[in-house]
């Protein structure tokens, strides 16, 4: 990335709040405002506000929109009812993951695909290429769209008075159209924190209106702005993969334990289906597991994982869990070492720390 990082419509708000800013995937983004632990706890206990304007928003329209998308991604978006969403992946012809996606069905022949910021251009290009010859139009509105999320147990109570959208009709992984703070918006009940919450899509020019309205509405409920640092610890506790860590071009959805998003039987096949059918038959080469470090130290991305004197894999993400108070990690290990309860070692600098394989996620909300 040689270009200057882009500002989001909310960069001025972050700077006014004294956020520490970083360059991330070509964007100038807040990594933290008051501190990662405080922001993390705000989301678990009350609510957090996130600037996700860096994400990619790709709208797909046309009589063949469903068929075109089904050919391009691993799931079958045609199976969605209008107003529902699915977690999906887009793979290369060899089955490697290009990105993980959320696909929303907005109308019979209209879909919204949300891609990671780091892959938005790749996904946009791949979709355009894969739609060729089909009656489907790709409208990449990544730069024209502001995406703001409010997440946490208090999110619904803060958000509901700002919108005429009946939030009870939008269940988890649902989406509805309406106004928020008087602005036309798409409201989705999705997120990346393990908490209940909403994601609001509006025109970029209305981003500050939505942000300010949420800040005001959430003040008495303890709503806190949350940066990318806590976004990462929240998603890790929730066992959610991050592209570049758990997912990459060398990994198939099966390796990541996400074979459920690969619909091999869907009509018409899809890009990568032959390779993924072979991968499904061969079984995963590695397995994504949760680890809790029982010895001393914090497992981090790239640390080798050992089963006695045999190197079994590597850590993909690791941190001190703010909620659990113990070091947690996700790692790829050999399939034979993946059973919960298995004791492995993580190589942390020049020492080894015992780590136990545990089921994912590390954290599940209780309310």
């Amino acid at each position, binding site marked *: 990335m040689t270009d200057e990082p882009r500002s989001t419509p909310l960069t001025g708000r972050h700077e006014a709040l004294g956020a520490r800013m970083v360059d991330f995937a070509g964007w100038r983004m807040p990594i933290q405002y008051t*501190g*990662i632990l*405080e922001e993390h706890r705000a989301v678990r206990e009350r609510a957090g506000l996130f600037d996700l304007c860096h994400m990619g928003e790709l709208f797909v329209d046309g009589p063949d929109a469903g068929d075109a998308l089904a050919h391009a991604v691993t799931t079958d978006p045609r199976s969605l009812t209008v107003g529902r969403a699915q977690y999906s992946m887009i793979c290369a012809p060899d089955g490697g993951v290009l990105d993980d996606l959320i696909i929303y069905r907005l109308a019979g022949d209209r879909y919204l695909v949300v891609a990671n910021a780091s892959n938005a251009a790749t996904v946009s290009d791949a979709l355009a290429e894969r739609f060729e010859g089909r009656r489907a139009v790709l409208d990449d509105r990544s730069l024209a769209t502001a995406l703001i999320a409010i997440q946490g147990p208090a999110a619904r109570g803060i958000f509901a008075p700002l919108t005429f959208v009946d939030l009870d009709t939008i269940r988890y992984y649902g989406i509805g159209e309406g106004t928020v703070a008087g602005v036309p918006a798409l409201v989705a009940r999705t997120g990346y924190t393990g908490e209940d919450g909403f994601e609001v899509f509006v025109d970029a020019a209305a981003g500050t209106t939505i942000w300010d309205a949420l800040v005001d509405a959430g003040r008495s409920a303890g709503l806190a702005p949350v940066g990318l*640092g806590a976004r990462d610890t929240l998603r890790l506790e929730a066992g959610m993969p991050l592209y570049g860590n758990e997912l990459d071009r060398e990994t198939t959805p099966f390796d990541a334990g996400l074979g459920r998003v690969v619909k091999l039987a869907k009509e018409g096949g899809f890009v990568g289906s032959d390779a993924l059918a072979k991968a499904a038959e061969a079984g995963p080469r590695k397995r994504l597991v949760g680890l809790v470090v029982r010895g001393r*130290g914090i497992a*981090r991305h790239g640390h080798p994982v050992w089963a006695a004197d045999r190197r079994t894999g590597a850590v993909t993400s690791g*941190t001190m869990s703010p909620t659990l108070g113990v070091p947690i990690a996700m790692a790829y290990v050999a399939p034979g070492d993946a059973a919960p309860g298995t004791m492995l070692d993580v190589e942390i600098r020049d020492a080894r720390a015992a780590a136990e394989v545990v089921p994912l996620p590390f954290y599940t909300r209780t309310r």
Partner: protein
Amino acid sequence: MIPADLRYTKEHEWVRVEGDVATVGITAHAADQLGDIVFVELPEPGAALAQFATFGVVESVKAVSDLFAPVGGEVVEANAALAAAPEVVNSDPYGAGWMLRIRLADPAQVDALLDPAAYEALVAEA
């Protein structure tokens, strides 16, 4: 802001020399830059350190950072309280957040460290 009675490294450690014992920690600037500190790894008492050698690691939620010994000598004490309460490095970096006490091998090594004015200039540049 920057205590006047300490000396500093370019890597943001501080040292307080009292007789032949030097107390070592990281500066408020370093702790703030790291963010919430969640883990500190220190050497055992008795360990021998060379000046500017790495003596341990401090980790925040997001980042891992090596610690450098401002002076050489024998570790006479490591702050055991930091194992259970590493956040003290954030809340009291020059006090309860101290890390090591080192018996100075050569008091002249202190002369190679930054004085408060030089350290303040370093932080201002960053």
